[in-house]
């Protein structure tokens, strides 16, 4: 029975009791229409429901703004029903286009289809099932059922194709790649000269130098090898800026994905550390499989707080091979300067891609004098941080999240050889 039925039943009972108590026949007569509304739902046969449910959300994994198509087929295997309302329960956070809800009569053996498109921000979404409500036309009888039909939709972060990020770790791996290794060997970039040794290819002879020194001199070339790249994504809650439904952390995730894909495409060995709630470590690896692992890790990444991981000084350096390349994706805090300088001193090459939190937040604030003053003060503070890091030999890429990452990277690496 529904709440409406309870209301009418309650009113009829009150009127009936009042009539009896006051010995007033007119009140008893007044109770009769209410009593009829109460009893009519007992009179009509109760619909017995039997359902068959099919369907899915396809594809199970979507990327960025690509939509997923949800389709559910509900078949009535029982008797015909007059008033059926069904709703596919959409997990919060997804935007729905189309109708995950349907209302209407439902004939015996008939199949109804719910079809809709969903888009959402990065994450994993669990669809629990279908809620079906059967009632009579008068709304006095109602039965609600939940038909479990679990489905999963994973919205993957969407990276950006970037190019020409020049890194030069002190130590490279033995495999051929595109990172200049500071060692002579087969390569294309000129590295130096030495005296000719029998067996050297004649086409590498440096005739000009030989004429000057009256010796046979051979050109040396720099070997290009694969390197170890550790990407560290700053997932500390205190660095997150969230306004108007936009999140700076989301931008950082996409940037980390773009960088990981770039370095993997170049043949490097890439690992990922998400530093925030705890240490979410994706062991270094090569190729497409590693790209998928990193994508999966970034899909689940959430900003979080942990007293131990408030600052970068707890960064477990043993995860990264000595003298390898570290890439931080972080908006940076004042207290991050010291740990980064320390890493640099340990022999790591450090590149910091810093999404600019001031530019990100400013777009969402009114353009007035107070905002301008606040921005100036924060800019001074940030410039001081960046200057200290630059002095320590940390390579900085400052990224305004309103512009494509590619543009900021191109601007930062323009004209650099190493």
């Amino acid at each position, binding site marked *: 029975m529904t709440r409406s039925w309870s209301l*009418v039943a309650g009113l009829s009972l009150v009127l009936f009791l009042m009539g009896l108590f006051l010995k007033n026949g007119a009140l008893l007569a007044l109770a009769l229409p209410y009593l009829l509304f109460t009893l009519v739902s007992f009179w009509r046969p109760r619909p017995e429901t039997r359902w068959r449910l099919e369907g899915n959300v396809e594809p199970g994994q979507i990327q960025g703004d690509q939509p997923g198509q949800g389709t559910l087929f509900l078949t009535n295997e029982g008797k015909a029903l007059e008033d059926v309302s069904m709703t596919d329960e959409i997990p919060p956070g997804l935007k729905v286009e189309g109708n995950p809800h349907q209302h209407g009569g439902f004939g015996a053996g008939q199949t109804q289809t719910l079809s809709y498109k969903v888009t959402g921000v990065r994450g994993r979404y669990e669809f629990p099932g279908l809620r079906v409500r059967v009632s009579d036309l008068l709304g006095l009888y109602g039965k609600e059922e939940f038909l479990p039909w679990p489905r999963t939709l994973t919205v993957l972060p969407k990276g950006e194709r970037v190019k020409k990020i020049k890194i030069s770790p002190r130590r490279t791996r033995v495999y051929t790649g595109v990172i200049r290794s500071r060692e002579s060997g087969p390569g294309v970039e000129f590295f130096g000269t030495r005296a000719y040794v029998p067996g050297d290819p004649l086409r590498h002879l440096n005739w000009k130098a030989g004429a000057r020194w009256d010796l046979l001199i051979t050109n040396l070339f720099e070997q290009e090898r694969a390197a170890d790249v550790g990407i560290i994504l700053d997932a500390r809650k205190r660095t997150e800026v969230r306004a108007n439904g936009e999140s700076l952390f989301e931008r950082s995730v996409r940037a980390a994905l773009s960088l990981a894909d770039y370095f993997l495409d170049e043949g490097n060995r890439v690992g990922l550390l998400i530093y925030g709630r705890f240490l979410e470590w994706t062991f270094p690896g090569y190729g497409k499989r590693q790209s998928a692992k990193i994508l999966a890790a970034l899909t689940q990444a959430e900003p979080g707080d942990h007293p131990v991981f408030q600052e970068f000084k707890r960064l477990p350096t043993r995860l990264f091979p000595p003298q390898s390349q570290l890439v931080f994706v972080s908006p940076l805090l004042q207290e991050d300067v010291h740990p980064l300088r320390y890493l640099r001193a340990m022999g790591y090459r450090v590149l910091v891609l810093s999404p600019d939190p001031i530019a990100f937040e400013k777009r969402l604030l009114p353009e007035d004098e107070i905002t301008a003053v606040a921005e100036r003060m924060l800019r001074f503070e940030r410039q001081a941080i960046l200057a200290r890091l630059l002095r320590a030999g940390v390579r900085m890429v400052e990224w305004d999240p309103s512009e494509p990452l590619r543009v900021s990277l191109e601007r930062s690496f323009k004209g650099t050889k190493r």
Partner: protein
Amino acid sequence: MILWVKRVSAVANGTLLLTLLFFQGHPKVALLAAALNLGWAINERMPSSLGKFLPSTGLVVNTGLSAYGILAGAPAGYAVLVAVVSLVSWNTSLFLERWPDAPRAVQYLYLRRLGGLVALGMGAGLSALALQGSYSLPFPLALSAVVISGLLWLRLISGAIEKER
């Protein structure tokens, strides 16, 4: 169509209660009741929290005022009419809330069912009053009321049996 049934019945309710209570010497309560019912007539245009709350409140208030009218000495048949029209407004409001874009065929089916129930309720209330001697109906009117009620009952019963098969 059902929207207009609800609006007309709510306005009718307001008018009926206004006259019922006005002549009983409660003009302020009559005006309040009329205002409530006029608000109910356009509850779908109100903010959803208020709009959803109004039909149930309206039904309770109208029922209470009908009972009060009887106790205050108003004609009992008039009070039964108010109660029945309130039930129509209330049930149509529920239907519209549940299924605002129902197809025309469903709307007709619903109105037939509601109409049958309302006619039965009204007939039962008035018959009870007549049995108590509140009314002295002329014979042709009493006969036609009995025949119409009987037919409606038969139709309802046969409909239920058909559905069961």
